[in-house]
């Protein structure tokens, strides 16, 4: 039995990518499959250095399509397998992830978002929201955690394995290039010491015993012959997803209890700027609150509506051209609420910018 990579707990100062590698180790991940693409390549590089010390494995594949499908193979074989990608790589991942959606394969993928569309920049964005939440030819039966910093990256990378294996939906840690490349402090810990038990993995193929004699043979497929058959299959998945949703949703509220002039809606790293903006707005005599969804899928719609109810209007802030806005509009449907926007595709947003925009729109 290999040594534990993280014992007890420790305060560290490292890049987001390194955090993800440590979190996967701490979560007892067995194998990583991956392909280099900036800005997530470091995750692979840390993993290749650390993994052998703890008996974990790695395969660099020929492209992201292969990285996604080999990850599915590893998961189906019963191992805690994961991958990481971004941008055009995430685009290629949609094919394997749609197979994961259909076949309920607990894949875990870490996604530090970069600029889009196409290859754009290697730096940062929040432009992979639509794709990660609803990509491929699926119905969005996925779990997406939008992290806002290193502690989140660590906590939710570990949690993703448990979410995926317990509920059997492909699960994504949606970070971004800023988080990936910046360094900030966090506490890494052994999940066991915090009462977090890693959900046991089970193989979907290669089970013990003679198939057909000592046990049922496992036939896994994603192709069906009739509409009726398919309808049943998809509605079954939908049922499970709706049932799991309340247990999966996570969010944070900042100053949303009383009446507000404006409610700031933002996710991921932009949420930090929103939080930073609140006291600055207060100084300007503007009563602002901030609602941050942590899961983009499933979206905590009820909670968002509850927060929005107390606000004269809402303002959506994102580093994309309306990807989060679409999700917000769906969540707030039917509420007669003015929705202002700060849309900055591929560019970071500072607290000062949020304050200026709100003041201008006053």
């Amino acid at each position: 039995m290999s040594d534990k990579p993280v014992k007890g707990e420790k305060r560290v100062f490292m890049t987001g990518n390194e955090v993800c590698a440590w979190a996967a180790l701490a979560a007892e991940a067995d194998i990583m499959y991956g392909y280099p693409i900036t800005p997530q390549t470091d995750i692979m590089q840390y993993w290749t250095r650390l993994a052998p010390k703890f008996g974990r494995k790695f395969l660099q594949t020929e492209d992201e399509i292969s990285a996604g499908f080999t990850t599915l193979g590893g998961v189906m074989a019963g191992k805690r397998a994961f991958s990481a990608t971004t941008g055009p790589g995430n685009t290629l991942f949609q094919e394997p992830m749609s197979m994961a959606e259909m076949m309920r394969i607990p894949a875990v993928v870490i996604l530090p978002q970069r600029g889009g569309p196409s290859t754009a920049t290697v730096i940062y964005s929040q432009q992979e929201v639509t794709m990660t939440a609803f990509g491929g030819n699926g119905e969005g039966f996925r779990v997406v955690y939008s992290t806002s910093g290193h502690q989140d990256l660590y906590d939710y990378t570990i949690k993703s394995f448990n979410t995926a294996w317990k509920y059997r939906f492909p699960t994504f840690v949606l970070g971004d290039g800023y988080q990936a490349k910046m360094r900030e402090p966090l506490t890494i810990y052994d999940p066991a010491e915090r009462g977090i038990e890693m959900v046991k993995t089970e193989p979907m193929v290669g089970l013990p015993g003679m198939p057909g004699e000592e046990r049922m043979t496992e036939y896994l497929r994603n192709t069906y012959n009739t509409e009726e058959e398919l309808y049943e299959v998809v509605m079954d998945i939908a049922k499970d997803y709706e049932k799991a949703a309340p247990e999966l949703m996570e969010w944070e509220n900042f100053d949303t209890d009383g009446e507000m002039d404006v409610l700031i809606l933002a996710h991921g790293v932009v949420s930090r700027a929103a939080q930073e903006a609140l006291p600055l707005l207060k100084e300007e005599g503007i009563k602002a609150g901030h609602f941050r969804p942590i899961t983009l899928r499933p979206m905590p719609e009820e909670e968002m509506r509850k927060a929005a109810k107390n606000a004269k209007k809402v303002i959506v802030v994102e580093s994309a051209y309306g990807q989060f806005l679409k999700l917000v509009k769906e969540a707030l449907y039917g509420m007669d609420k003015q929705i202002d926007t700060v849309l900055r595709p591929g560019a970071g947003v500072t607290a000062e910018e949020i304050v200026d925009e709100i003041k201008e729109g006053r």
Partner: protein
Amino acid sequence: MAATRIVLAGEGGQGVQVIANILAESANAEGKEAIYIPNFGVEQRGGVSLAFVQIDDERIGSPKFPKADIVVALSNRAVDRTRQYVDNRTTFVYDDSLVAAAEIDEHAMGIQAVEADPRNQRRTEVIDDSKKRDKVDLPDNAASVVSISANDIAKNELHPRVFNVMVLGAVLKATGVVPLEQVKAALEAKLGDKFEKNPELRDLNYKALEKGMSLVERVV
């Protein structure tokens, strides 16, 4: 209290990322909140290397900031790249020695290695020709503009290798964000092995720190 916001910029190979990291690590070791983030702009090898550091007592919000408390620009291209971070509260420090721009065109696209890893950086040549100085267009909206001849001093009085450590000393003095001892400890952590093999290196580095501190006054 608001965070201290520092922008460091120079040619790739001048060691900007190393000292930005040391600054952030020292602050973290001191028990402060710190965020370091490298380049954003065109990712390059050998082009302008930028580092952004924030140090605060409270948890820091956005890793990006619009204006800095102190900007240190160590080449002419770095001056151009960093003028957007200057406002009437910024102390702008620039190096008035002559530095040859590195070979790779700043507008080269498609290069994806980020400057964060010091091993990716190539050394840049210091041109020894004090007669030919490129005209530098300095920002005119800063609180104050300070020139230090970091390159020249490093080359003539210390050693080109500790150029960046000298700049670190200057930033330390100007901002007062962390005690000198903490920075020395961070240097030790990074270069301790090399210091053991060659104790003169330690002296050289400490001398560089102190020289840097002597070049500026506390401004933040």
